[in-house]
């Protein structure tokens, strides 16, 4: 299998390449003006943020866009090289399917952007109050439960939102996600705009959810439109964005997200406003043409899969021989829509390594596997893992051995120790508390795979502050770092979930010191094991019995 055949990524044309090349030159000129003292720190802040550059606690941090989490092996190798040349040889996979590097010097960022542009990558709108990277299901195109591959629509929205003349200076950051599968792996209920993609007859249609989000004021999005035909995608988005840009609050950054506007107006009034605006835009020149949809859809057409057979017997034999391979197969390998293939998730959640951190050597290795065991394409999931979408089943064991040697085969996907975690107080200047050491302590304490498998699927999310980059509100167990008179404490909530039946976690009670957290998690798990009925998953158990029994046990000796 080679990288040349059937690579499913958006194919840049002259137009696309010229745009990002010119954007690099534009940013280089902005940096030069800043270094020459022509721009104040505050002015340059807004410009650099629109190019993904944060100034963090220890050093600048550059967030590189990986549109909807899809990249080629060539692009991943380029990221590995950039991390070696400009950084300390590692990168960080984010919950928005992007990649961050943590030590670039401000002066050389334009050079990094130029290197990225050579492989059709950029940092455009990865931060700042603008439309951010559009995300989707990391299994898009290969998932057995998929209705419609959402990637072409993500790409169409990426292009439309790139330096939009009206919507690049919004009240606050703006995040969109698409989901085209039965299971919602894109968390569309907790995005500023979540779009459900479906098919009626020959036509692709969209449902729009608006005003979901995490952060300080977590909210589940409201449905404001169902069954919108695909040609109207951009004009309808323009209508939503125009209402938000005009009426979203700008006096208080904590009340500036669209969820606050939707709540203040009520979803019904907001919907009516959008509809009134859309009346003017509908069927205008931004209406998508069949030719344009077709052009982009064709970039993501399935590769010509060589015929293969399912390898049930071979795999059963290997699984019997190796309990570790068996555990990995059970947790990290998902069904593929084509017989003989499998979808593999390479976990970055090795105990002792910050979740999402990957070295240059690992990036190069993953790129090689994407070529050797696929069509040269791979994904980053919002759980901060790599996904190889097209692995022939007969090569699963070989891939596992290689991944294991690189520390990328933790068989904990979807289990307690597959922790989603922000960089926290070790790196981020916004954080109230550290998050990585908490994740590590939990991974060290609960390192018995048999126990983890017995517990079954548990999503544990950690955020170092209310900005909720670790999505703690939607963790089955959510941990939030808080500041209590200058000391780091942790609030714990239960029952959050980001799927189709989304819910926000309920806070147990007073927060805990860092030393207490692991013990508290242990008590929570004991309550679950005592209370569960047969194979009832953790989330269902919490929903059935409520948080009271957990609360009772956790605070039993607290006096």
């Amino acid at each position, binding site marked *: 299998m080679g990288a040349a055949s059937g690579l499913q990524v958006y194919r840049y*044309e002259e*137009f696309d390449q*010229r*745009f990002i090349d*010119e*954007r690099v*030159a*534009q940013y280089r*000129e*902005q940096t030069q*003006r800043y270094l020459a003292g*022509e721009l104040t720190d505050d*002015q340059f802040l*807004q*410009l650099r943020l629109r190019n993904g550059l944060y100034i963090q606690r220890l050093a600048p941090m550059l967030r590189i866009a990986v549109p909807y989490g899809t990249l080629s092996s060539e692009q991943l190798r380029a990221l590995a090289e950039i991390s070696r040349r400009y950084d300390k040889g590692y990168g960080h996979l984010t919950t928005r399917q992007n990649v961050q590097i943590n030590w670039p010097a401000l002066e050389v960022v334009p050079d990094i952007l130029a290197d990225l542009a050579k492989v059709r990558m950029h940092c455009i709108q990865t931060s700042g*109050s603008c439309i951010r990277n559009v995300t989707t299901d990391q299994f898009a195109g290969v998932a057995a439960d998929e209705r419609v591959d959402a990637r072409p629509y993500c790409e169409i929205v990426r*292009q*439309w*939102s*790139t*330096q*939009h*003349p*009206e*919507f*690049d*200076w*919004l009240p606050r950051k703006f995040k969109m996600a698409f989901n085209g599968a039965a299971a919602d792996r894109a968390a569309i209920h907790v995005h500023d705009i979540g779009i459900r993609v479906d098919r009626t007859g020959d036509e692709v249609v969209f449902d729009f959810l608006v005003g979901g989000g995490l952060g300080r004021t977590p909210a589940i999005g409201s449905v404001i439109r169902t069954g919108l035909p695909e040609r109207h995608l*951009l004009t309808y988005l323009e209508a939503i964005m*125009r209402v938000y*840009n*005009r009426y979203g609050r*700008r006096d208080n950054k904590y009340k500036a997200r669209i969820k606050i506007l939707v709540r203040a107006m009520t979803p019904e009034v907001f919907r009516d406003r959008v509809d009134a605006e859309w009346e*003017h835009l509908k069927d*205008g*020149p*931004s209406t*998508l*043409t069949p030719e*344009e949809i077709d*052009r982009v859809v064709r970039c993501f057409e399935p590769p010509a899969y060589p015929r293969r057979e399912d390898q049930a017997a071979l795999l059963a034999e290997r699984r019997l021989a190796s309990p570790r391979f068996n555990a990995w197969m059970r947790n990290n390998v998902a069904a593929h829509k084509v017989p003989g293939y499998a979808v593999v998730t390479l976990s970055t959640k090795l105990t002792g390594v910050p979740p999402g951190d990957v070295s240059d050597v690992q990036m190069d290795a993953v790129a090689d596997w994407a070529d050797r065991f696929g069509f040269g394409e791979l994904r980053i999931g919002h759980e901060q893992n790599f996904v190889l979408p097209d692995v022939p089943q007969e090569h699963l064991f070989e891939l596992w051995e290689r991944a294991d040697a690189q520390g990328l085969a933790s068989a904990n996907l979807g289990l307690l120790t597959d922790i989603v975690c922000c960089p926290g107080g070790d790196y981020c200047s916004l954080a109230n508390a550290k998050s990585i050491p908490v994740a590590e302590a939990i991974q060290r304490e609960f390192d018995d795979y048999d126990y983890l498998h017995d517990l079954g699927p548990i999503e544990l999310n950690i955020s170092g502050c209310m900005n909720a980059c670790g999505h703690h509100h939607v963790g089955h167990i959510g941990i939030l770092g808080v500041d209590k008179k200058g000391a780091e404490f942790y609030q714990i909530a239960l029952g959050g979930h980001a799927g189709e039946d989304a819910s926000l976690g309920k806070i147990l009670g007073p927060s805990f010191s860092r030393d207490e957290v692991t013990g508290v998690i242990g008590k929570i798990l004991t309550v679950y094991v005592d209370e569960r009925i047969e194979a009832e998953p953790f989330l269902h158990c919490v929903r059935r019995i409520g948080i009271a029994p957990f609360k009772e046990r956790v605070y039993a000796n607290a006096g």
Partner: protein
Amino acid sequence: MPTLVRDLEIVPDAWTLVASGAVPAPVPARAILPFEEWRERRAVLPVGRTGTWVEGDVEAEAVGPHAANLPLIAVHFPAFADGRGLSLGALLRTRYGFDGELRAYGDILPDLAQYLHRSGFDAFVLADRRSAEVAIASVGSITDHYQASVRQPVPAFRRR
């Protein structure tokens, strides 16, 4: 010194901005009045000779219907990162057919010029000459964009 850019050239400014509550009588030629005060006086002002200024958060529905009688509308940007004026400008041009001078002033960073230009502003007031020159250059820094704008109403995908 504040420097006016119109149609991507530095030009002298023949207009005078009048602050709220400071409208002289009679109103001099080429004055830019606060919108409420322009509206109160519009019956007695010579037609098409007096401009108005508004804040970026004014309802387009309030100003738009007067577009045909106004030679100039100036939109105040209280902070360069406040994008409300961009939507207002686009609405005045596309929905109300305003074809006079659409001017942005206030906290105008040169880097905002490309957005102003594309949202229908043909004039902007920069802090000084150097900023004005940077603003003009920045408008041309990107040859073509993906999406439609007031300046280019046909999106790139219809021009491929």
